[in-house]
């Protein structure tokens, strides 16, 4: 369980995240949704320690992550798989080397086991046969998928995904969502997914946090989301003409 308690963050006087509290449960897809620029990425970066909140607590299994010493922090981080919004694949390595990297660094697996695992992860994100390509030779969506394979390679205990299906076609999107959902349930992972894709929200939202202008605006799950009375959330959910047609009359 990861618990956020009254997290605040501002960049040069401008408050980007204010008083956000939330609980991320294991085995569930914990979604953070909100408009572009509402502070989702910033929140995720604080949770993994890339940014330090101005105030508030981040508890990993009850332990305060911010005040942990560097050694303990690294131990926690070695159990984190993270998918960056831009992928952040290592340019100098092939797709396969990227996926192998965390295993080489932190596991005692033999070379054969590592390669098997890498191939397995790559096939799960539908990238089989692309092992020897470099990131520069991949499309945007392929980069995302390769990065997800890298995040999953070490069987993480915590999984952070920043917009895993932006830039993907609807069909591949669903495959990726399904994959995240499956591993989350199978390995009881604590998963945080940042998204603004309504398909994902409805398809995998077990536990949803809606952020509006950096604030904790609404919490619930995918079935509650469609019936909400919250004005800002309604605007967010029914932004598309298609979904507007499905909107229940109040």
């Amino acid at each position: 369980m990861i618990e956020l308690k009254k997290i605040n963050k501002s960049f040069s006087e401008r408050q980007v995240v204010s008083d956000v509290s939330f609980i991320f449960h294991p085995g569930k897809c914990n979604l953070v949704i909100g408009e572009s620029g509402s502070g989702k990425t910033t929140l995720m970066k604080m949770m993994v320690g890339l940014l330090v909140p101005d105030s508030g607590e981040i508890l990993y299994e009850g332990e305060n992550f911010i005040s942990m010493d560097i050694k303990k922090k690294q131990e926690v981080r070695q159990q984190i798989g993270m998918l960056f919004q831009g992928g952040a694949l290592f340019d100098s390595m092939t797709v396969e080397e990227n996926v192998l990297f965390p295993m080489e660094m932190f596991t005692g697996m033999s070379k054969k086991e590592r390669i098997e695992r890498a191939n397995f992860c790559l096939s799960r994100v539908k990238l089989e046969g692309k092992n020897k390509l470099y990131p520069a030779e991949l499309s945007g969506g392929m980069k995302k998928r390769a990065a997800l394979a890298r995040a999953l390679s070490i069987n993480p205990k915590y999984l952070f995904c920043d917009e895993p299906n932006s830039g993907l076609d609807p069909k591949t999107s669903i495959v990726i969502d399904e994959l995240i959902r499956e591993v989350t349930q199978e390995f009881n992972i604590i998963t945080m997914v940042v998204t603004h894709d309504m398909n994902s929200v409805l398809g995998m939202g077990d536990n949803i946090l809606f952020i509006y202008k950096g604030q904790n605006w609404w919490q619930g799950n995918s079935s509650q989301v469609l019936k909400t009375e919250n004005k800002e959330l309604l605007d967010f959910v029914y932004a598309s003409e298609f979904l507007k047609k499905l909107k229940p009359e109040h």
Partner: protein
Amino acid sequence: MKNFRFFYHFGRYCLLLGRVFSRPEKLSVYTRQIFREIDALGIGSLGLISIISVFMGGVITIQSAYNFTSPLIPLYAIGLGTRESIVLEFSPTIVSLILAGKVGSNIASEIGTMRITEQIDALEIMGVNSAGYLILPKVIAAMLINPFLIVISMFLGIFGGYSMGVLSGACTSYEFIYGVQSFFVPFNIVYSLTKTVVFAFIITSVSAYHGYYTAGGALEVGRASTRSVVYNSVIILVTNLIITKLMLV
């Protein structure tokens, strides 16, 4: 304010070095990186260094011949002068300055790009000490391979001088070789290679520092790379003076 900037950078540079030299997570991964860097930083610079050394050797010889016009100076002094210029200063210092341009800008832009595309963050999230993983192999590789590069540069420089001396008729082959072999002080080589190793450390660590703390976008990567060359050059020149004073006087 300017002075404070200096202390700020120097302090941050030292802190970064502290992280660079902390214990590697996995030796095998680091060793592999060192070999890669030896290939990229060392072998990759061989062509450039060879061409420059041959030509500069030639020029140094012609200039020595041009200056030694007095009948009191024996012609073998041309070979001797060429050897001393190349061994003491041209190969260790000028070649290092050229490497500071080539290797330094390369390192700064590589690491800078990794910073702005969040690759360094990705390493940190995995629990890797990004400073150690990215910088230590480069520093070690350069300190190992640069002395070889410089020795090759010395040989090629003297060869260039010999060819030019003989071809232009400034001296005979015998005179040049006699000059190259006379009054040889082995300590000069020690001095020269000491400089080389220190410069290798400066080039890699200073440019890595500029790359590592890049913030912003592609524009800043370009700036970091330029800045690293400027800083490297100045630091190399000052260090050159200090080492020379300490070792030769």
